[in-house]
Each structure stands twice: as C-alpha cells, then as structure tokens.
C-alpha cells in the first residue's frame, strides 16, 4: 500500500464521521492556540513592564522616609518624625562628590496638586512636582517643546512651569501653542516654559497629568517649607547603583543620627531591583500561563485518544475484513496512526492560525508578543500527542486475529 493509498484510507476514515472529527480537531486547536496565545500574553506583559521600567532609567534611586516624610501633611510634627525628614540640605550633601562619589545627579522633590487655569479653561493637575533641573534627565522626562528651567530659575524662584502632555492638551488643546503662555496655578501666575514628552502609563494614574516647577517656587507659592517628599538620586553608572545606594544610606543615617539599633527610616527604591523583580514576576506569570495552556493541550490529546478508541472499537469488524483481505499489521497501524496524526496536525494548524490572528490584538490590556519557539513546540507536541495517543488504540486493533476482529459486535 503506497503512502498515497494510506493517506486516502485515513482521509476516508476521518470524513466518514465529520462531526466527530471536527470536534476532535477543535479540542486540539484550542489546546495549541491557548499555548501560543497565553505564552505570547505572558511574554508581552513582561516586555511591556520592562520597557516602561527601562524608560524610567535603570540607574535611578528614589529616597523617601518612612519616619517623617510629609510630616506636616499628616499632622504628626513630633520631634522624632521631624528628625528623619528629608531636607534640601540632605539633597545638597548627596550631590557632594566627596561624600557620595557614585552619585551623579540629585534632585529633591516636593509634590502638591492644584487647579491650573488658562483664560476660561481650568484643569486640576494631580501632581505638581517641585524640583531642580536635574530631575528631568535623571527620571528620563525630556522636555519636548520649549525648554527646561535652569538652576538659576530655581535660585531666584522664577514662576515658570513645565506642563505634562495631558495638562497642556487640557489647557491649550494644542500643546504646541502652550509655550510662552501664562497660566494660573492656584492664585499665582506661571509662564509655561516647556511641554514634557509623552510617557507611557506605568500604573493606574496618568503620568502625563503633571506639571513641574522649580522647587523654590513651589515652596514659596504652594507647598510651604515642610520636608521633601523624596529625593531622586541618579547613580553614576548602571553598575554602580549598589554602591551609590550604600553611600546614600550611610550618609543619611549619619546626618540624621539614626541609632544603630534602629531599622533605617529611609526607604531607597532601586529601579534595577524593581526591574528585576518585575521581570521575575513576568517569568512566573508566563510559566503559569504556559502550564494552564499545556494542560489544555493534554486534554486535547486525551480527546484524540478517546476518539481513536471509539473509532477503532467501532471499526473493529472493518479491521477484521481488511486483515482477511491481506492487510498487514503495519498497514492497519499506519492507517489509524495517520488518522490520529492528521486530526492532531489539522487541529494544530488551525490553532496556530487562530493564535496568529488573536495575538494581533490587545488582550486584557497587554499587547501579546509571539514567542516563535512556542509555535514549534505546540505543533510538535500536538503531532506527538496524535502519534502517542493514537498509537495505543491502533496497536490494539492491528494486533487482533482476523477472526476475532470479524466476530466483534
């Protein structure tokens, strides 16, 4: 029997019960499709998180205090709370090359919020950041239109403002027209010096609904002279993040006379760590999704086995006839194996096709990124599943003595 004859016999066998074949194919294609799509979703979300964090800058340290930061705002102005508050002097000390040689840039940060108005239009800015010009390069926040403010602007408390994309759009419709205009923030006039480049969202809040002003101006007009919310520190190099972090900790501990037996009141978030953590999380997430998908693939395989068992049982008489007419064991085996493999492969192909289409769209807010090896793996597994699971019933049938197969009811 030529391969072509075998294929013909297998196809005739499959088409003899179309609905059943179709359902089996469906089971396999769901399994294969699920593997590819879910792995792509896991991969995509990992890539997205990584891209966002990398955009933030990987050599960034964010220093805040757990003991006294924002003490005024929380109404707990006790001496111990005060003691650990971050100050502009801390920022200045961190910027000192002799005290912290691995720190390249330091920007003190105070935040507040306020309503900005331009003519009749008003817009509530969620986050008004008071800082120094170092903040922009350190946090990867470039100015797209106009220009940044300068250290001199900070020293002289100039009333200049940089608007985030959302803020600029809300106030001026077209951000390009914003530069040079005067807006009111609270009761104070500010001149728009520049518009920040758009940023991708890293969380629930819109990172473009911001405005940045010189820290001195913010303190004078909005936030008062309380402690800093945080200090943004840029390590000189990606590889020197850890030493920079140690220097920051040491310096602040010394400056604030933290007793040695006390846990540090300063929290230093390291973006490289965050990146690593979220990459690990993404990998776990992907593995989890892949496991779920693999299970569905196995379920599809069991479907193939089940169908082949039913088919073989149902066609035992036919097998007996074929053997009586001179069919050899391997011919019978070949026919049923080809049937099982065809079911799996057609299912696999359909699964891949559907997965290729589905992964073009965002799923649950994630743009899936295909992992090419997952396609090969899913197809390979589906063929192997067909061969493995199909071979058991086929072996059983092919091993029957002709008369036993013929007598089968």
């Amino acid at each position, binding site marked *: 029997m030529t391969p072509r004859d075998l294929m013909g016999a297998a196809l*005739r066998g499959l088409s003899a019960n179309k609905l059943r074949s179709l359902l089996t194919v469906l089971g396999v294609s769901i399994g294969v499709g699920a593997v590819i799509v879910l792995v792509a979703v896991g991969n995509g979300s990992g890539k997205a998180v990584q891209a966002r964090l990398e955009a933030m800058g990987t050599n960034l340290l964010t220093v805040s205090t757990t003991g006294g930061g924002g003490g005024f705002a929380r109404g707990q102005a006790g001496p111990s709370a005060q003691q650990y508050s971050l100050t502009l002097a801390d920022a200045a000390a961190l910027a000192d090359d002799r005290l912290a040689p691995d720190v390249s840039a330091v920007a003190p940060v105070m935040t507040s919020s306020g309503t900005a108005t331009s003519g009749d239009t008003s817009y509530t800015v969620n986050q008004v950041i008071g800082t120094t010009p170092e903040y922009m390069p350190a946090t990867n926040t470039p100015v797209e239109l106009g220009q940044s403010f300068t250290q001199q602007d900070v020293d002289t408390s100039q009333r200049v403002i940089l608007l985030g994309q959302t803020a600029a759009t809300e106030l001026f419709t077209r951000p390009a027209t914003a530069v040079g205009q005067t807006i009111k923030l609270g009761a104070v006039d500010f001149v728009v010096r520049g518009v920040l480049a758009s940023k991708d969202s890293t969380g629930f809040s819109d990172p473009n609904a911001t405005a940045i002003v010189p820290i001195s101006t913010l303190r004078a007009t909005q936030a008062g002279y309380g402690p800093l919310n945080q200090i943004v520190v840029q390590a000189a190099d990606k590889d020197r993040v850890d030493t920079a972090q140690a220097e920051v900790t040491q310096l602040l501990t010394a400056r604030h006379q933290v007793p040695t037996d006390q846990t540090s009141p300063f929290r230093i978030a390291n973006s490289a760590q965050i990146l690593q953590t979220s990459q690990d999380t993404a990998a776990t997430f992907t593995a989890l999704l892949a496991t779920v998908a693999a299970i569905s693939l196995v379920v599809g395989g069991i479907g193939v086995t089940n169908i082949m068992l039913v088919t073989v049982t149902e066609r035992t008489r*036919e097998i007996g*006839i074929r053997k*009586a*007419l*001179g*069919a*050899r*064991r391997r011919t019978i085996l070949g026919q049923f194996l080809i049937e099982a493999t065809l079911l799996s492969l057609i299912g696999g192909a359909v699964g891949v096709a559907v997965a290729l289409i589905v992964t073009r769209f965002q799923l649950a807010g994630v743009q899936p990124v295909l992992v090419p090896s997952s396609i090969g793996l899913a197809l390979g597994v589906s063929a192997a599943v067909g061969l493995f699971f199909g071979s058991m019933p086929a072996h059983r049938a092919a091993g029957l003595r002709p*008369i036993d197969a013929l007598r089968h009811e």
Partner: protein
Amino acid sequence: MAADALIEIRDVTKRYGSGETAVHALRGVSLRVEAGEYVAVMGSSGSGKSTLMNILGCLDVPSRGEYWLDGSNVARLTEDQQALVRGRKIGFIFQSFNLIPRTTALANVELPLTYAHLRRTERRKRAARALALVGLSDRADHRPNELSGGQQQRVAIARALATGPRILLADEPTGNLDAHSTDEVLGMFDQLNADGRTVVVITHEHDVAARARRLIQVSDGRIVADEVTRR
C-alpha cells in the same frame, strides 16, 4: 506428504474456552484437498463447518494439529506471511458479505488489490473487470447499504476473485439469496472451477452441494463422510 495436495490438515482440533465451559468445535479433523477440486461441506448447525473454514482461510488457528497450505506449514509462517497468503492465495466469501460500509462497491473490490501492492490504474482495471464478471458494472459507485442482499453477495464474490486466488473458500454464499441469484452465483463457481481454481463451499442446501464433485459431511466436530459425488 504428497506434493500435489494444495490443502492438507492433520488431526486438527479447535477448542473454544477452557475447563467446564469449553466447546470442542473440531475434534480431530484430517483432510486433503488437491488443486482444482470442487468440494462441498455439509452438516447440521453448530457442527463446526465455519470453524473449519476459518482455519483453512488462515483467519483462525487450530488448537492442535497441523495445517499445510501449498507445501508450507501455516503455523510456521510469520504474521506478515500469513497476511500475504490471505491476500494472494485465498479468496474468502463470507456468509454475511462483510463489505466495508460507506465505501463504494468498486473500492471494496479494489481493497485486496491495494494490499497486494498493485498500481492504481491496474487496480481500477482489475476491480472493474471483476465487477463486470458478477454483472454489477452499473453499481460500481454504490455503497453496500444501497445494494440488495444478492448484489452485496456478488460484490463480495467479485472482491474474492479480484486477485485471481487459487483457492476460493465460501461459507454459505447463497444462504441469503433467492433461487435465481443462487443459480447465478453457482454458475460463477462452476466457471471458476472449470478455470482450474480450487473451490470449497459450505452449504445447507443439497442442490448447491450437488454442483460440487466431492461432498464432505461434518457432524459434531468430526468428518463423518467424504465421497466423490461426480466425475
């Protein structure tokens, strides 16, 4: 053994099951059939005729005893060699037709030729010729469930003839047929035997047995009579 015996079985027994419930379908049967004979086998129901026929057709194996077919011991043949014997030397006609469902008459007849590794065009030609021989050319594309009982039996005969086997084994081939169809089928057997093929037919009907030249009577798993009825 004589070289001219095409079929020879020696002291063959067949037992189904074991212990208390064992059924002895054959209790020691010895038989020689020369090439070109036309043999009828008769006997009451349950006497072991079909069991004997299945063993002769290499579809079943005896519990004890030897079966020599065309000079070789069947028990010694490998599974593949037995398949080859079934496919090339023997044409088996079942009482219950045993056509493959959902498959056209032509494809059914073609099947043994496929297993005999014939080329596609050659297969088609021979299958069509075999169908023509049984007068069913116009039903070639019909499936078994679209054929009458007599037509199905004729397709089964065409299938048994397609490979040009030396031995034709028929288990009650006319059991389901009317007088006219029976006559047609028996005419075919006469023709085949005249061509030199060996024919063994199981039947309950005396007028069917009368067409053969040798009559074997089976009773309770034994051969009780074996006579040449016609020269």
